[in-house]
């Protein structure tokens, strides 16, 4: 039996520690990991808790991220509660196995501490790795601060392990900006935290010797499409009600409310930015300052990236006149992901808001309040003109001659 850790009501934790404490509190059975900056402390702290008797579990040291997720897949198929963490290049090496995990419907939790993808090599935070996994069949949650990194891990286990869902979940947080930034985190006691998620309920586990199963089968054109269709159907129809129920239960327990799409000052907003990660909070602060100047500014934060909240997004922008999609990943020859998803979502919606896109913050480049103020100024002009007054895509915060396209 693992020892209980006494926590203060508010602990000053960075995002990595917050995630690691959540893994401890739900008593993850197996972590197979290959540490990589900036995600290292998540699994390092898990190993520390394990070595000091605070977890009944196993830490499996492996030779690569591909092996890390493979180990997680094996442990999860065997019937354990399983989690790991990674970033950037490690995530890229994991991609092949991400598809295996989701196709096998294994409820693994992956903390992705978002970091730029080389080349050039860079350890700082952007959303390149997050975007790389968006078709992998996982559920993706995004945390904007350490408190949310803590909270969303509990929600992730609850949703993933539900027998009507049985899909792996990534909990994203911004490398360094969240992972290495210490802030006050309101904690749950070990007992309350564990009980929210509950004992792991295995399903089709390999260690159920009375019901032998074969995992990871091959299908060709005769069966593959049906399996993928089933997974897509479940992501499209079954996941959001379960996420909402988990958010509701978590709010009832803690008072902290999460939404599939986070709307800040959107009720009467005429201009809005849409973004993810720490940028959401900085944008909320800037929007408040814009409001003080008489501009009806709002912010939409994407809390659930996959499945994509089509209906909730369409709802969020009613009455909005100009929207900016902020992508923290180089689209490398296309509009940004958020721009494209928003365009696809809003094209048939009631809104006829002007939609423009921005690429920002690559490799950890600071998103300053000054940059956000410029974006709102663009949006106010777009709203007044009823059409784009800027290029559809602008790169902001980059040195050199102005870069804008489309």
């Amino acid at each position, binding site marked *: 039996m693992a020892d209980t850790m006494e926590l*203060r009501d*508010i602990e*000053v934790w*960075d995002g990595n520690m917050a995630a690691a404490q959540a893994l401890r509190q739900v008593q993850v059975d197996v972590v197979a990991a290959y540490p990589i900056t900036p995600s290292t402390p998540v699994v390092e702290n898990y190993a520390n808790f394990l070595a000091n008797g605070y977890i009944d579990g196993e830490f499996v040291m492996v030779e690569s991220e591909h092996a890390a997720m493979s180990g997680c897949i094996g442990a999860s198929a065997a019937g354990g509660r399983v989690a790991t963490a990674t970033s950037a290049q490690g995530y890229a090496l994991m991609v092949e196995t991400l598809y295996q995990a989701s196709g096998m419907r294994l409820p693994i939790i992956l903390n992705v501490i978002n970091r730029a993808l080389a080349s050039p090599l860079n*350890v700082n935070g952007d959303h390149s790795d997050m975007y790389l996994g968006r078709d992998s069949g996982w559920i993706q949650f995004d945390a904007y*601060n350490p408190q949310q990194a803590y909270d969303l891990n509990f929600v992730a286990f609850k949703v993933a392990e539900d027998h009507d869902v049985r899909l792996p979940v990534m909990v994203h947080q*911004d490398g*360094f*900006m969240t992972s*290495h*930034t*210490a*802030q*006050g985190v309101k904690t749950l006691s070990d007992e309350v935290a564990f009980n929210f998620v509950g004992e792991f309920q295995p399903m089709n586990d390999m260690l159920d010797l009375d019901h032998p199963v074969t995992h990871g089968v091959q299908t060709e054109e005769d069966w593959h499409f049906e399996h993928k269709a089933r997974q897509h159907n479940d992501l499209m129809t079954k996941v959001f009600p379960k996420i909402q129920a988990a958010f509701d239960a978590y709010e009832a327990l803690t008072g902290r409310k999460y939404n599939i799409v986070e709307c800040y000052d959107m009720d009467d907003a005429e201009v809005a930015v849409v973004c993810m990660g*720490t*940028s959401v*909070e*900085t944008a*909320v*602060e800037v929007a408040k300052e814009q409001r003080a100047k008489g501009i009806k500014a709002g912010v939409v934060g994407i809390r659930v990236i996959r499945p994509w909240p089509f209906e909730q997004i369409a709802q969020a922008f009613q009455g909005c006149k100009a929207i900016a999609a902020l992508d923290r990943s180089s689209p490398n020859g296309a509009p940004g992901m958020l721009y494209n998803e928003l365009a696809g979502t809003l094209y048939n919606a009631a809104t006829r808001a002007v939609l423009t896109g921005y690429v920002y913050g690559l490799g950890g480049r*600071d*998103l*300053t*309040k*000054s940059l956000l103020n410029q974006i709102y100024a663009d949006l106010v002009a777009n709203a007044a003109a009823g059409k784009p007054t800027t290029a559809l895509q602008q790169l902001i915060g980059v040195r050199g001659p102005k870069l804008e396209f489309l």
Partner: protein
Amino acid sequence: MLEIRWHSRAGQGAVTGAKGLADVVSTTGKEVQAFAFYGSAKRGAAMTAYNRVDDKPILNHEKYMNPDYVLVIDPALVYTTDVTMNDKPETVYIITTHMSTDELVASQPKLAGKNVHTVDCIKIAQETIGKAIPNTPMLGALMKVSGMYEMDFFKESMVRVLKKLPKKIIDANMEAIQRAYDEVK
């Protein structure tokens, strides 16, 4: 919003200092944020760490800061980096040096006319902790200059923050904090 910028070398404990300060401040009901800008992330490389303190939740995640306090815990960084960047007229400096404040300002004209305090955190750390880890003494100096907390409360809190260290090291840190509090000018 109170904002603090630390100038340090990787390995001198600025991140630990910033996080320790955040921990203590958090216990008084305030919202805190502590983060760092790691640069090349090599031991000895110049780096900056940051604190934000406020009565309401801190939403701002930009690294850009107009600091209320600039804490310099390595004496050479006054010359090799710009410790005055993005400051404001009321910014308060606490700088580790063996020199007097007048000598320091004379040696680095950028500091002229600014509110500069000096304390030799390196020497204090060497004489108390036995290593040039100047982070905790800088916190003692900050308590004196800012009047943020009573010394008894602060030291009591720091004992809790440092609780994983051996008692001897904790005692040495407390002595370092007290000496910097007494010696900062």
